[in-house]
Structures are given as structure tokens and as C-alpha cells.
């Protein structure tokens, strides 16, 4: 009897181990009839000091951002079969046109809207950071704060505004299942990493326009597209 119970126990443990060793595979592609879009910000290791996000760039600049207003005017999934060199691109049904301007320093995640999905698997997310009014001025981004060059004692303040649109097309990351979503419903979250966005920039060599434009562009390039699918 004891032997039988021991054997049963061993079998149960092995079954449990097997379950852990072979987790359910993630969805192999994003195909959904309804898509919810969210914009998220991850400041990673940046510190919060007096309301500013403070971090060090790869070139050694210490940067404090007191505000970063960033627009998004278009989110659209791009089908894997889309011919990228095709003229007369027709927008996908998943296109969401919007006039969002976020304050990234707050670090919040916002669901910004939803759209239909097509019947083809999606591979990328087309984001346009176009111009949106902020205090009566059409802007793409506005970064306010300071930086201190490597070895410098004094910090340099900046209030950099970009009025030039930026567009990016990050690939989708590996997706996950989300049981809170309905079948064929997807959640697509664009995660940006602002503390990386000034990497590679020689800040004192840039005009305010170029600083803001470069930051917005890098923000888009470094972004990841996380997605979840209902089942």
C-alpha cells in the first residue's frame, strides 16, 4: 500500500514536472478580428529625482527630463504579406488614427483605442508620430530638462521642440495568450524606452530641433510591440 502510494506520488510529481517543462506554446501569429491598442513607457533604471527622470546615456551624459510630450497620430498593424515596396499602400483595417500627446515622464500606460483586424497574420506595427497641438502649437515632441556632459560641472538646460513627423515600423515581439480577452481579440502594446532615446547623441552638438527629432526617432526605433491574444 505504501509502495502504491509512493508510486502514485512519484507519477504525480513527474506529471507536474512534465507540465512545467513543456509550457503551452505562445500563439504563433497575430490574427484577430478586434485589436486594442495601448501605449506604454518603461523608464528602466532611470531614477526619479524632484519629478525628473534622471539617467545616463551610453556616451556618459547625465540627463534629467522634467517633461517629454510625445505625439502619436497613427497606429496600424502591417500584414506579413504586405509588399513593402508597393506603391499606393492601402491602409489596413487595423488602422487607428488618433491625436494623442502623452507626457512620458509620468510613465503611464494608456489604452488609446481599438480597431478591426484583418484575416492575415500581422508582423509589424506602423506608428506615425505626427503633429498634434500642444498649447496652441503643432508639435511632434517637446522635451524639457537638462544634461551634464561627461566631466562637466555645469548642467545645460534645454526645451527642445520637434515639429517634423517621424514614422517607424517595429516588428511584433513574441505574443502571449490572455484569457481575459475574447476569442480573436488582441491587445497590442507599444512599449517605449525613453532612457535609451538619447544614446549615441552628442548633445551639445545638436540644435534643439535635432535633439527632439532624434529622441523621438530613437524612441520609435527602440520600441517593442508586445501583444496578447484571446482564445
Amino acid at each position, binding site marked *: 500500500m505504501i509502495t502504491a502510494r509512493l508510486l502514485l506520488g512519484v507519477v504525480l510529481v513527474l506529471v507536474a514536472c512534465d507540465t512545467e517543462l513543456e509550457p503551452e506554446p505562445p500563439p504563433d501569429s497575430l490574427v484577430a478580428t478586434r485589436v486594442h491598442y495601448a501605449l506604454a513607457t518603461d523608464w528602466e533604471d532611470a531614477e526619479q529625482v524632484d519629478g525628473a527622470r534622471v539617467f545616463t546615456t551610453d556616451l556618459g551624459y547625465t540627463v534629467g527630463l522634467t517633461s517629454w510630450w510625445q505625439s502619436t497620430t497613427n497606429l496600424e498593424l502591417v500584414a506579413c504579406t504586405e509588399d513593402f515596396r508597393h506603391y499606393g499602400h492601402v491602409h489596413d483595417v487595423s488602422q487607428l488614427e488618433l491625436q494623442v500627446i502623452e507626457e512620458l515622464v509620468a510613465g503611464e500606460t494608456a489604452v488609446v483605442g481599438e480597431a478591426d483586424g484583418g484575416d492575415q497574420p500581422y508582423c509589424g506595427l506602423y506608428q506615425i508620430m505626427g503633429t498634434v497641438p500642444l498649447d496652441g502649437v503643432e508639435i511632434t515632441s517637446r522635451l524639457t530638462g537638462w544634461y551634464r556632459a561627461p566631466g562637466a560641472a555645469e548642467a545645460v538646460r534645454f526645451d527642445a521642440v520637434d515639429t*517634423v513627423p517621424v514614422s517607424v515600423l517595429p516588428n511584433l515581439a513574441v505574443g502571449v495568450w490572455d484569457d481575459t480577452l475574447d476569442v480573436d481579440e488582441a491587445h497590442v502594446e507599444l512599449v517605449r524606452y525613453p532612457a535609451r532615446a538619447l544614446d549615441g547623441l552628442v548633445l551639445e552638438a545638436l540644435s534643439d530641433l535635432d535633439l527632439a527629432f532624434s529622441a523621438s526617432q530613437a524612441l520609435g526605433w527602440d520600441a517593442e510591440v508586445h501583444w496578447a491574444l484571446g482564445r
Partner: protein
Amino acid sequence: MSRDQRISKRIAERSHTLKWRAWIVVIGLAALACADDSAADDEVGETGDGDGDAGDGDGDTGDGDTGELVGECSGWDLLSDFYPDVSFADLTSCNGEHAEAIGDSLMNFDGLTITGDSVVGEDGSNTATPCVEVLCDDDYAYIASNALPHYNPQAAPIFDTVDTPIVHRIPLVPAAVSSDVSADDWYDAPGCESALGMAVVNMTPTMPPSTHCWYETEDGTANTGEYHVTDGEEVVHKVMCYGQTASLITGIPAFAPCEEARPDPYGSPLFSAYEDPDTLFVDYCGTHPAAITHNHWLNEVCLAQDADNKPANSYATGAVSFVIEDLDAADCTAESDTLGWVYDGHPLQGGCVCMARDGDGECTDLRRARSGYVYAGLSRWANDASADANIHADSVAASHLGVELASCTTRDDCCDANTMNCRMYCHPLLIEDAGAVTLEQRCVTPDYSWCGHEFVEHTDVLEDAGYVYLDRCNGVETADGYLYAGTPTFPYVNGCYKDAPSEMAIDDTYTRLDMDMGGMGGMGGGGGPP
């Protein structure tokens, strides 16, 4: 296999090779990432930061002076395909005033790489190296390029930016067009009525409508007439309706004023790009990718060079400078630089040109070059006698063209409630009113540019203070000889060739590639795998 087919095949093979290489590297990187999650991030460098991407060795690997005999740019691969009478061994560095001027004008890409989601680099990354090089023989300069921009591509990344070889042939001595060639009548524009009819019902055309530009179907069964056109006094060579007309100083080709049959049928993409910059169909430097990346208009700030011929300004700086009203203002303070070379050998310059010099060579009459074309309207081709009821005046008036040429301040003035599907834009352009040419905002259609615009003869091209009016080809005889000027209004670059162009003027290699990719005359959406 014909010459054109051979060239197209090589370009397509190169593009496919780059993409496959990219996929192989991506798969390899993914495998590495699985094996080691701590794999280093492969960040790419900034444009022009001199980090010298290893790449494939393309680009100006010499001492940084453009015009050096280096021959590593991918454009050279097609030299003998484009010009069977020429081999690389025949070419030398460029000597002589005109040849050296071409070499000296080219942009220096030394140490420059570009990056972006749409860039397909040879090593599979999103980083590539632009190149432009020039070599000469006794008669021509050959500008080889891989047609990559000198800044991170900004047009919608739904189009890839791929190293695409091209070698332009520029005559060192412009030669007049022969007077005994067959030429179409400039004032006879067959097809503009049918263009109006198609515009009224929003139908995609299969042929360009005008005799002012050159197009021939692939099977050669239909075309837009002769290669030449005449106003009765001068015979000029047409530009292609869609295709290259010049090499810019970056090696990227300038394209004629029209798009393909889609999205704006044989119209300028400037209207939509200027109305809504967020569309990014063309970037604000005037560039966008296609079968070959090309420019539809010029932006002097984007093309400005520093003392080493390197790009002087960022893309963003160039983008904010592109304001049509400013670019038409008669306020020139300095002569514009050479921005390219047209296939008949004349330079393509920015908008401020010198019309007279004193004995010391100082410019004494600096003027804004203004196009001789005005927007006269597609509706002007309405004809109540036509069998096509769509072009009767009442049908045209009832269509979206009913507001054509109305004054406006925003697009809403031209489109009622449904701006999304409206074919009209509120755009600043030249119009003629009571004999005077002015730049005004009017409701206009981008479609069928050659039919919507009309050339206005100026008895004195210097009649307006501060301006000089350009000829049909968008050129003018200046204090330094004949040149073409980039203008912010139609035709933007050269609209024809005053002198005899090289064969690049009618080479449809890249146009055909675009069609193969579903472009001109295509039936919309879809397409094959990337």
C-alpha cells in the same frame, strides 16, 4: 534576353539577395538570442557620426574627396549593361572644367551610414552606406550610385530602402537637339479630355494622357507620341512621364513631375505630402523609396554641403525649411548651389540664380527662379461637344472639380465634409490672374499634372522684380550659361531637355521594376511577399 530585361534582372536579384541575406542574419541572430539571452544589443550608429559601418566596402573608401577613382559603388556593376559601348577600364578621373565641376559638386559620404526600420543593409542589419562616385571618358561623366539617401530615410517605412545600383551618363558638352527630328505639337494635348473624364469618375488610367512627356507600353504597342515636342520655334526632348531626369549630387535620381497611375494618377505627390506631412508618402527632402529611391522635388537645405562636401544639415533642419511661400519669395541673398546634373549636361541648381555679373565676377542681378507654368485647372478641358458626358461642363461642375481654383485657406474649403476621400487640396501654387502671375492657395487636384498646368509665355522673363521666369524645361540662360532650376511648383525639376540627352532620358528600367512591383497601372492593394 534584352538589355532592359538583363538590367532589371540584375537589380531585382540584388534586391532579393539583400533581403534573403537580411532574413538569414535575422534568423541567425534569433538563434543566438535563444541560446544566450544576454546577447549584446546591436544598436546602429547615428547618421554621419563617422562610426564607419563595416558594410560591404561600398562607398567612398578613398580619401574623402568625391570624384576620386575608386569604383567601388554598386552602380558601376551596371555600367556595361546600361552602356554596352563602355567598360570600366575605359574610364578615368574627370578632368576639364565641366567634368571637374561635376566631380566637385558631388556629396561626400565618407564615414556616413544610414539606418532605419526600412533600410535593408548588405549585412542583414538596418544599416547601409550610401555612395556616389564619378568617372569620365572623353564625352561623358558617369555618376555611379546606390541611390541611398544621406540621412535616415523618413518616408513611410512601408517601403524598403535598398541599395539599388544606377549609373547616370551626363554629356560633358551639351549638344543641341537636331532640328530635323520628328516632334509633337506642344499645343496639342490629346488625352487631357479623357484624363478629365477619368478624374471626374475617379478611374485609374492605363496611359499617361499628355504628349508633353514620354511613355511607351512594355510591348511597344502604344506610346505618348514622339520623343520630341515643339512649340513651333524650339524643339526639345521630352522627359519620361514617370522616371529619372537627372542625377542629384547624392547620386539619387530626380524624377519627372508625375507619379505613376497610382496613387495620384500622373500627378505630383507634393500636394498630398504638403497638405498632410503625417502621410510621409514622400519625405520633406522630396525623397521616397520605390524600385529606386528618387526625388520628386529638391530641398536646398537638405542638399547643402559643408566645406568638405559633407551634408551640412540634418533631415529635420531641411524638413522645416520646406515652405513653398518662402521658396517662391523674391528675397534671394546668395546664389544657390548646384544640386544635380541633367542628362543633357546642364546643371540643376537651387532657386536663386545669377542673371548678370560685373567685371570682377560679382553677381549684380540675383533672382528667384520661378516656373513658367501656372495651375490652369483640369476642368479647362471640359467639352460639351464630347461624346463623353462626364466632361460636359455641368458634369465637371457637379464633381469634386467644381471647386477647382477656388480660393481657400484649408482643405475643408475644397472638400466639404468628406476630406478623407476628397481628390482636392488647398495648395499654394502659381496662378495667372489678369496677366499677373502670383502664388496663391487654391483648391486644386494633384492628378494629371501636365494637363492641369499650362506654360505661360513671358515676353520678358525678367519682367517681375526679383524673379526670372523659366522656360518650358524649367531652365534659363544665366550669367553662367544655361541651367535648370529646382522650383517649389510644377515641374519642380527639369520638365524637358533643352539639349540632346543621354539614353538615360528614356531608359525605363526602374519604371518597369516599379510596375513589376504593382506600381503604374497596377490594380491596387495586395502584392507578393516582401
